């Protein structure tokens, strides 16, 4: 956002945005370092808020969290088009950037839903329900309101093992946290010594139920994997 502010101030628009640790490509004619400035980025965001629907703003956030290469530049171009155009560009899906924004946002949103569906809590001996996740996009934050509302009377931790941070809910508030060591749950399974007494039983019950539900006459592995992509299996109780 600060980059955008600077660009408007400098009246020059970049071809490429780089993170500070990225290599500059050859043939750089000019480069400008952007120091994140909360005030200026808040200004840009405000400007966007005036021109865009709340839904579109959420979309921008999703694209940012996608962590896909080029998504920062995409947001940059999108914001620029928004500021430069008299009319709203939000519905113009014939514009490649508008369409791409929508596509990426959909992807992230899709994964957010997947997380909401596929998080599996394991109950620890201290009554905290623990769930490891490793989403492709950095979208854990987008699910927290859902879990906070749904599981408001149990303590829980949902932990992104890929990015090494998570959220802890203590029956009142949710706080972001980082664990010193992930040894407590090798491969996503809580160490048996740490499990609540009947946790193993309920896991067995769930696996037993899952197996019994399958209608053998209709088995369809392709459809199964299409709905439940293999990359999510490692933390699914029923697939262990």
């Amino acid at each position: 956002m600060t980059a955008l502010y600077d660009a408007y101030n400098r009246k020059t628009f970049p071809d490429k945005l780089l993170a500070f640790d990225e290599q500059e490509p050859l043939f750089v004619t000019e480069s400008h370092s952007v120091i994140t400035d909360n005030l200026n980025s808040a200004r840009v965001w405000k400007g966007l808020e005036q021109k865009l629907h709340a839904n579109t703003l959420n979309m921008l956030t999703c694209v940012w969290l996608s962590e896909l290469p080029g998504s920062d530049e995409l947001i940059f171009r999108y914001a620029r088009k928004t500021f430069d155009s008299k009319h709203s560009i939000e519905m113009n899906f014939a514009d490649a950037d508008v369409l791409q924004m929508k596509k990426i946002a959909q992807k992230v949103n899709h994964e957010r839903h997947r997380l909401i569906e596929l998080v599996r809590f394991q109950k620890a001996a201290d009554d905290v329900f623990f769930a490891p996740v490793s989403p492709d996009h950095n979208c854990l934050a987008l699910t927290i309101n859902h879990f906070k509302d749904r599981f408001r009377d149990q303590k829980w931790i949902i932990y992104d093992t890929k990015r090494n941070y998570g959220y802890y809910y203590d029956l009142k508030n949710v706080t972001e946290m980082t664990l010193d060591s992930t040894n407590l749950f090798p491969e996503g399974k809580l160490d048996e010594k740490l499990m609540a007494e009947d946790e193993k039983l309920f896991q067995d019950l769930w696996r037993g139920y899952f197996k019994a539900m399958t209608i053998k006459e209709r088995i369809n592995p392709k459809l199964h994997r299409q709905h439940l992509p293999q990359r999510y299996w490692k933390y699914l109780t029923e697939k262990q």
Partner: protein
Amino acid sequence: MKAEILEKLQVLAESAKYDVSCASSGTTRKSTPGGIGSTSGWGICHSFTEDGRCVSLLKIMLTNYCIYDCAYCINRRSNDLKRATFSVSELVELTIEFYRRNYIEGLFLSSGVVNNPDYTMERMVRVVKDLRTIHRFNGYIHMKSIPGASQQLVHEAGLYSDRLSVNIEIANEQNLKMLAPEKDHDSVYKPMLYIQQGVLQNAEDRQKFRSAPRFAPAGQSTQMIIGATNESDKQILNTSVALYNRPSMKRVYYSGYIPVNAYDNRLPALKQAPLVRENRLYQADWLLRFYEFNVDEIVDDRYPDLDLEIDPKLAWALRHPEQFPIDINKADYNMILRIPGIGVKSAKLIVASRRFTRLTSYDLKKMGIVMKKAQYFITCNELTSSTVSDTSPEYIRKLLTGKKTPKGKDNQHQLTLLFD
């Protein structure tokens, strides 16, 4: 909770799994302080079985003992089968513990008939009542009402459930009586009517008093078994339309008959469940509900059964070449919906974007619209390849059903419920 529960759970899940409905949508329920859970409004699938069906609710029977002898059911009394019964508290605890681990959205409770319909129904009501009142459970509850249950118990069930269902099972009453001598349409339609009355009455009450307790806020659903008897798709779909015309009826499910009781010679000898037909019926059902199709446009006296080779929308288009090609840039939304290969989402995208630019087939592709079928039925800015009106429906049909993919693979593809 003890380990014997595992065996009970497996027996009673095995017995419940043939009911195809698993939806957990249609209502929202906010979480409450001190309560457990919430209901989100959009259906959440927590897992998928190896046959590809969504696992959203703990789908379970209270007992699989049954005094009835329905020919299409594995739980019929004449089957020699492991039987089990949950106590009310066992089932309540199981539901809550599964819910807390995010395995499920809630409970789908059905039961075999013990003693008599009301006796059975009363125990089922106790489960859902305990969940809601003692444990303040806010997850989703679907309860399958027992045919022949009294109005009072159906009413009580509606106070604690989000959705109720009564399965009609067989569209033709004569056939139903043949396979399920203890049942008739009256025993199905009566509870359906009680539910409908409850829902309508409740809507009125809640207009007067916002705080009036809700009654089955997600309405009711039902299920028909396909291929166990000789009804045509025309009969089946017309039954569906009549059902959808009833207020509160939200979904009709179609369940391809699985030959669980092959020894019973009132039933057809099938090697496999009629899965393609089942899928075509769902597609037709979608056309009725979301694509503004009339049932006579899908099946009529000339074509009483759905085409198994192609989807019902394509079949309609090929029977009506005079309606095509459709101009993507000008046609009304409801005509764009009728283009084979274009779904509701794509149709909306097209209508939204064409206000900015004239769309070309390149734009459509970029939007993610699959042109495989659509290309023969549209015109856009540029000259297109031959459309159905330049060639012939037979030719297009051949092109689209051509055996480019190996047969087995193609077959599997048809089993997915998604289509455009």
